[in-house]
């Protein structure tokens, strides 16, 4: 019994010092052991330098490259530096951000996945493999992009029309939207 309680208190002491249950540490040690063994195979394959560069690059490419890019694009679009002041009409324009954001993001995603094909970056390999060339892909991507934007514009037009017809009867029932926290001033 005495040893049991000693183990128990040791476990608690360790948990306080380490910051989590000892099982947490065990699981992580197992994780690093397996990952370390896999890394040793990478070394044995003689490809460790390139592998390491690509692995670290993969770990940061979203957070330090893609995220700043798409966030900046999103903020810029919402602030609309190209905006012209319109006289306030009787009906406020329904929020349009997502009608621009969604087709742009979907088209961007397809480009992100298929850019080597769309831009013909592996033309030589592609021709050697398939006996064809990559020329149709740019057009196909543009076609999909066009359909996405056209669909979005159509959806916005429908929304606008619906808002207009319903506002005729219950314009006062619709509470004004809370002002956005931007643009400032």
């Amino acid at each position: 019994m005495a040893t049991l309680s000693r183990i128990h208190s040791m476990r608690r002491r360790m948990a306080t010092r380490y910051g989590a249950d000892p099982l947490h540490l065990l699981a992580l040690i197992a994780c690093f052991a397996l990952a370390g063994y896999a890394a040793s195979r990478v070394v044995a394959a003689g490809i460790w330098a390139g592998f390491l560069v690509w692995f670290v690059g993969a770990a940061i490419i979203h957070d330090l490259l893609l995220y700043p890019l798409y966030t900046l694009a999103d903020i810029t679009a919402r602030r609309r530096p190209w905006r012209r002041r319109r006289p306030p009409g009787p009906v406020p324009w329904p929020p349009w951000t997502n009608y621009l954001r969604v087709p742009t993001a979907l088209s961007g995603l397809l480009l992100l996945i298929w850019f080597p094909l769309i831009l013909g970056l592996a033309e030589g390999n592609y021709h050697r493999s398939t006996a064809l060339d990559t020329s149709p892909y740019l057009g196909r991507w543009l076609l999909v992009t066009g359909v996405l934007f056209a669909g979005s514009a159509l959806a916005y037009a429908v929304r606008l029309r619906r808002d207009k017809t319903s506002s005729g009867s219950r314009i006062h029932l619709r509470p004004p939207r809370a002002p956005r926290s931007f643009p400032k001033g």
Partner: protein
Amino acid sequence: MLLAGIPIIAITGLVSYAAYEPRLPGNETTPERGWLGFYLFDWPTHPAWLYRVTQGVHVVLGLTLVAVLLAKLWSVIPKLFTWPPARSLAEAVERASLLLLVGGVVFEFVTGILNIQLFYVFPFSFYPAHLYGAWIFLAAFAVHVAFKLPKMIRSLRSRRLLDELRTGLDGTRPEPPDPDGLVPPAPEAPTMSRRGLLAFVGGASLITLGLSVGQTMDGPLRRTALLAPHGRAYGSGPNDFQVNKAAAAMSIDPADTGPGWRLELTGPRPTYLSRAQLLAMRLHTYALPIACVEGWSTEQTWTGVRLADLARLAGAAPGTVEVFVESLERGGAFGQASLSTGQVADPRSLLALRVNGADLSLDHGYPARIIVPNAPGVHNTKWVRKLSFHPAAA
């Protein structure tokens, strides 16, 4: 989605490793694998469509989950800026494992997606990097799931899906502050409801899926693969289906495939056969898929001589021998392949001479190619010049 999808991608990936029958001579693409390339069974020839399905799922599901993965990475961005980065040793060690998690998952997606587009910009061979990278990722993924599963269940239970589906933008409120610092302290007014975000990410996945899944199908649906490297239409002739490795690229000399071509059989009774002699043998016709590691597949009707009959001709007993197949091609990584005893013995395993009623075209392997049910595409060797039957190693 990722929790369900990633294990499926991992398992189909490891299945593909086994499908290459890496124990057999010439088939191993990752010789230094150690314990990491284990497999539990010999690769079967039944059902013929198995590899078509597993590898199609591996590639197409991977593409489909890109949107979900990006949404996941986007949603945890605030963690990147938490300060101090770790409040305890435990947290510091766990964050180190997150580097393996994020690096691993993006590494696997990027190498896989570039590889199917034949965009070989990475400074390493695809097979070892994708296999070892997968194990590094899976190690971190397993502990991440073990640590976070209770929390995920709690978060999912904190909201009712039906309620969220009824909540529009006007009713969308920010998440209450959490102890982990995942919730922004001063969020801007929402521009998208939670149901909107779900539809956004789901729609992005469906579009990627819809524009690529056609590469695994035959018939008119194949034309829907607008954005997939190997979903192309060649025409309507018997040989107009997807080519992978054109004859010109593999330096196939037309002189070698002409009337002077002979198939060399080695075994207890070595012999040479001309194409006319092969055509005079008993021919069999089967509809079999050809399914590539890059995810595309197509079923065609092949006519040729059974490998088992060729083994007998060479004096070997099907069921006891493997075959080492050599091609006329030069410079390719798969100019040779070994087929197992089971593959040689299957009556549908052919040395194909014709396809869809016509002679094979040069790009599809004229004068003769291998077609084995359920084998990965690269083991269906084209432009075969030599079959070496040898007893299976015990």
